[in-house]
């Protein structure tokens, strides 16, 4: 397999998630943003407006396909062929710069729970995930990125930390890491650990993309709702990430209570500033 640096990092700069409420701005102009990411499943149709818009923006920006529905770690079910076939069809059409999914499960028998549920971090789960990731990479004929998820609980059976697990997964399967800084922060509060030493477990060459987003507080829990601006502790953690791992393509995610495009572009500008702070230092 090619080195991570060349095959998993075709993007540069700061991107934003493309959402339907901003379509008009991307059809009538070319807003200043380095690249765009979409949720793959929103473009699984045979035709229609979403695909029309995606085909259009693809001419102006590199696009990253971010899946939320493969539920790779689901043990009770063979990887659903139909879903993977649709992802392959979309990837063939869009020729994305990147394809990514999550370190999670979500299917039990026939039932899809439609959530990104954490898996226990064990050797058994690792072997299972390695096989699944390889299966997807074989179908897509390209390496993918796998993202760390937000968690509200941790399994008693886990024998590895999430990022030790991810480091092994990238090593054994050839996939890259999509490092969600907000998810790490949310988990550090929810599960009470210091997030900074975790950065030392991440090897710079394995990371293909970074996600930044806002979260909400519900009593003692931080809920990863992607519904607000990136908060200060997450910016600080991001700056430390850039210092340790170098400049990495970074995405501003915003999926609930989506504000005007302007606000997303402001957040993107803040991410660029944080990258530059490191250069100035």
């Amino acid at each position, binding site marked *: 397999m090619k080195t991570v640096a060349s095959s998993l990092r075709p993007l540069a700069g700061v991107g934003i998630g493309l959402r339907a409420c901003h379509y008009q701005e991307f059809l009538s102009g070319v807003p200043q943003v380095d690249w765009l990411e979409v949720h793959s*499943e*929103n473009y*699984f*149709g*045979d*035709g*229609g*407006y*979403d695909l*029309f818009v995606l085909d259009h923006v693809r001419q102006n920006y590199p696009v990253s396909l971010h*899946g*939320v*529905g*493969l*539920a790779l*770690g*689901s*043990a*009770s079910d063979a990887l*659903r062929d139909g*879903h993977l076939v*649709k992802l392959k069809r979309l990837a063939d059409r869009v020729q994305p710069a990147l394809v990514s999914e999550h370190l999670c*499960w*979500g*299917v*039990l028998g*026939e*039932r*899809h*729970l*439609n*959530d990104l*549920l954490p*898996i*226990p971090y*064990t050797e*058994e*789960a690792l072997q*299972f995930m390695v096989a699944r990731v390889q299966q997807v990479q074989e179908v897509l004929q390209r390496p993918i990125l796998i993202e760390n998820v937000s968690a*509200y*609980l*941790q*399994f*008693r*059976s886990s024998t590895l930390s999430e990022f030790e697990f991810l480091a092994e997964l990238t090593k054994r399967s050839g996939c890259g890491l999509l490092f969600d800084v907000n998810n790490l922060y949310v988990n550090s509060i*929810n599960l009470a650990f210091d997030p900074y030493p975790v950065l030392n477990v991440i090897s710079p060459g394995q990371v293909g993309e970074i996600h930044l987003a806002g979260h909400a507080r*519900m*009593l*003692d*829990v931080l*809920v990863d709702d992607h519904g607000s601006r990136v908060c200060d502790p997450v910016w600080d953690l991001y700056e430390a990430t850039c210092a340790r791992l170098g400049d990495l393509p970074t995405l501003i995610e915003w999926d609930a209570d989506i504000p005007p495009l302007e606000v997303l572009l402001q957040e993107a500008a803040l991410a660029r500033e944080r990258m530059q702070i490191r250069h100035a230092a």
Partner: protein
Amino acid sequence: MPPDLPRVQAGFAAEIELAQSSAEAERLFCGSGEQIQRRLGVYRSNQLMNLSTALQGAYPVVAKLVGQDFFAGMTREYSRQAPSTSGDLNQFGASLPAFVEQFAPVTHVPYLPDLARLEWMVHRAFYAADHARLDTSRLAGVPANDQSQLQFRLHPACALMRSEYPVARLWEIHQDDFKGEFAVDPDEPCGWTLVSRPRFLAQVWSMDEASGAFLHALTRNASLADALADAQARDSGFDPGSRLARWIADGVIVDFSVP
């Protein structure tokens, strides 16, 4: 060691299902029973929110009619009876019309199931394949002898339904951009409703009996002669020429073949 992953996931799913976590939860997760219970609540509400948001996207008018809070509760009941089976949430909700038909709290709204059927047709139309309009000059090349055997084809996004209620009008007045009088004429025609999507925007049309019968025959690959017979059985004055021209111009009929 027996595989742990299937057991852990089945246990996790069961805990999300329950309103109160069981003793098993403390064997699966770290933390106190009370903390685990609250954290499972986050998973429960996230899942319901994901399903409810998706279902509301597919059924905006039904959601408006029953109200947001009720709709969220209805989503919970519905997803118990007909769980999501796809990682693509735009597929979730196909059987909601059948569900509302027997869901006691809404059976007093007799038109709700058919309105839901119409909304699902509109929802699916949004994702259907694109198709260019029919180039009418192609029709001129069909020999006169073959014309009665022409098989016209509808746009892939087109769908037809029948109802005893004026669902097209009900749908229309509940659209966010509807500017007319918020009222349904008791004499509003019922019967056939057609959903089409000439380019990207779904359109909903109320159809007279003959037109509905004609288009319905086309969906079953009937020849022009057979479709016309169906239509004229309902209205002897049905004029195919003007209707065909209109449906072609509107992007409803997009192709034909001569067998």
